[in-house]
């Protein structure tokens, strides 16, 4: 994992920080001003995401879209420690699980609904995210990634052996969500709109974090931890905070997932699912605005669209991950963005080509 991170750092450089930070974002005293392209693409994405239920997608496709949005919320959280602070973790399915089980247990024992449970899900997941992140203060790269994967598996095993409290291997059931904003959330289209709204909010939150002073502090850790410390950055503290922030995303996603599926079980939150999350975020690109959403879309929909057998699709993912690391460092979106910038530059050069040569190049 360390090599992957380093490759990301080396090749994506300033150009890949693109959509989430830097070039298309002009910074002035007044704050952040996104580029025109970014605003247009964002508007198209927002409209497309929210308009989906009116395009008669069918039950199956819509339920895939719900899964995609839930996953993307977690991935936008991962984008904070991974994309900005540069620390890869493989525990995010577990953190989502803390959120989901908190929601389910609070519902069963205290009769809380989805909204009431949400802050608790976020808090519990954030606390455990901090715990999962603790080893990163001593070890880094793939060593750290493996410890988080192990913690995720430990959670799954604990849930399986949790008896009545966690519902063991069968898991737990949840009541219907009921009404929210005047909409019946037990209709799939409405449930989709709810998770889609949260997905867009998490996208916005990640964008704001990345473009804040705090995002810059996290990037200093990613870029050069020793230099960051020498100018007074408390790198240990900020690593843990970054993890806890991502835990909030995962916890909320878990709460939403528990109520969307209305049944949760340990196998949703094991190490294998965490690996998929890592694949998605790397595939799309952790430092770009649309990277996490794209990664979630591809990995959720591709096997369905191409009708690939589950075993084959796992092999395909492995190959895809290696291909992305080798060929598209920074992820699909970062590479697309660079391609677009290159085309723009080429178009500008072509236009200039017909005009007379520069003064500098004429003989003295």
């Amino acid at each position: 994992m360390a090599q992957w991170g380093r490759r990301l750092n080396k090749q994506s450089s300033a150009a890949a920080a693109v959509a989430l930070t830097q070039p298309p974002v002009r910074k002035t005293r007044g704050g952040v001003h996104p580029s025109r392209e970014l605003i247009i693409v964002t508007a198209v994405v927002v409209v497309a995401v929210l308009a989906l239920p009116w395009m008669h997608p069918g039950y199956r496709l819509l339920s895939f879209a719900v899964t995609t949005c839930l996953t993307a919320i977690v991935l936008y959280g991962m984008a904070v420690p991974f994309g900005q602070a540069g620390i890869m973790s493989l525990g995010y399915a577990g953190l989502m699980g803390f959120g989901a089980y908190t929601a389910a247990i609070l519902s069963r024992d205290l009769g809380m609904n989805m909204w009431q449970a949400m802050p608790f899900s976020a808090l519990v997941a954030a606390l455990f995210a901090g715990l999962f992140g603790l080893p990163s203060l001593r070890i880094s790269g793939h060593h750290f990634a493996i410890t988080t994967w192990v913690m995720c598996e430990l959670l799954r095993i604990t849930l399986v052996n949790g008896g009545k409290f966690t519902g063991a291997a069968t898991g737990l059931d949840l009541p219907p969500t009921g009404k929210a904003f005047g909409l019946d959330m037990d209709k799939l289209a409405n449930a989709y709109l709810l998770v889609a709204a949260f997905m867009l909010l998490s996208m916005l939150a990640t964008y704001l974090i990345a473009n804040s002073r705090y995002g810059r502090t996290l990037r200093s850790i990613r870029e050069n931890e020793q230099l960051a410390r020498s100018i007074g950055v408390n790198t240990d503290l900020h690593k843990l905070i970054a993890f806890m922030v991502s835990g909030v995303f995962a916890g909320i996603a878990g709460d939403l997932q528990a109520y969307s599926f209305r049944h949760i079980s340990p196998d949703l939150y094991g190490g294998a699912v965490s690996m998929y999350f890592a694949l998605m975020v790397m595939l799309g690109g952790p430092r770009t605005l649309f990277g996490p959403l794209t990664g979630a879309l591809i990995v959720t929909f591709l096997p369905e669209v191409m009708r690939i057998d589950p075993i084959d699709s796992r092999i395909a993912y492995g190959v895809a991950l290696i291909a992305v690391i080798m060929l598209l460092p920074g992820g699909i979106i970062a590479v697309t963005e660079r391609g677009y910038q290159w085309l723009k530059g080429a178009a500008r050069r072509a236009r200039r080509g017909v005009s007379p040569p520069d003064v500098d190049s004429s003989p003295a």
Partner: protein
Amino acid sequence: MATVLEISGMRKQFGGVVALAGVDVTIKSDEILGIIGPNGSGKTTLFNAVCGVYRPDAGQVRWNGADITGKTAFEIGRLGIGRTFQQAMSFPSLSVRENVQIAIEHGSARRDAATQRWSTPEDLLGFVGLEGFADESASSMPFGNLRRLGVAVALGGRPSQLLLDEPAAGLNDAESAELVQLFRRVHQLGVGVCVIDHHVQMMAELCRHLIVLHFGNKIADGPTEAVVRDAKVIEVYLGAQS
């Protein structure tokens, strides 16, 4: 206000290698101090032990009288002891502006006329001679500029004392001479400057006071003119160069 960094009895051992064998160094901010010595004499280890990168095996570091031995690297940075690194460090994939912005947003609590001059990235980059490079990514800059950026990042943290670890390594004579001018200006603005290097000519020009380390021991400490004529120094260090 003049500050004093007192290092006493500093000892650091790596396995069987004694990098520092109980060294006493006093760094006063009103003079530019140079620490010279051949490779492996313990110069960088001294800085790292002061700056919280290593915990010293024995010895004490006092900053304006207060014991700061064993404080972590970021605490040292916040106290106003800034440093640069031998390897010309930067935040490579970030823009030059963002590199110094990070330093300005952290660093020490020092606020006075001197640090006012470096309170924005543009001012700071202008001061070190990197105006016009703000939007470049740090990794795309030539090495000489990377050295300047290292100094700019350290200054951005509003230090009262700057520890420069071989700031001219890898630079040509013209670039080194420019850096010497830069360090003089930094010092005139009331920031203590302590330089490690083994470029004797540059050090003799920059520093009034020299300390010579050899295998973890201090073998000379005094005014530059006296130190460069010291028989022991010539034997172990300067002699080896000719």
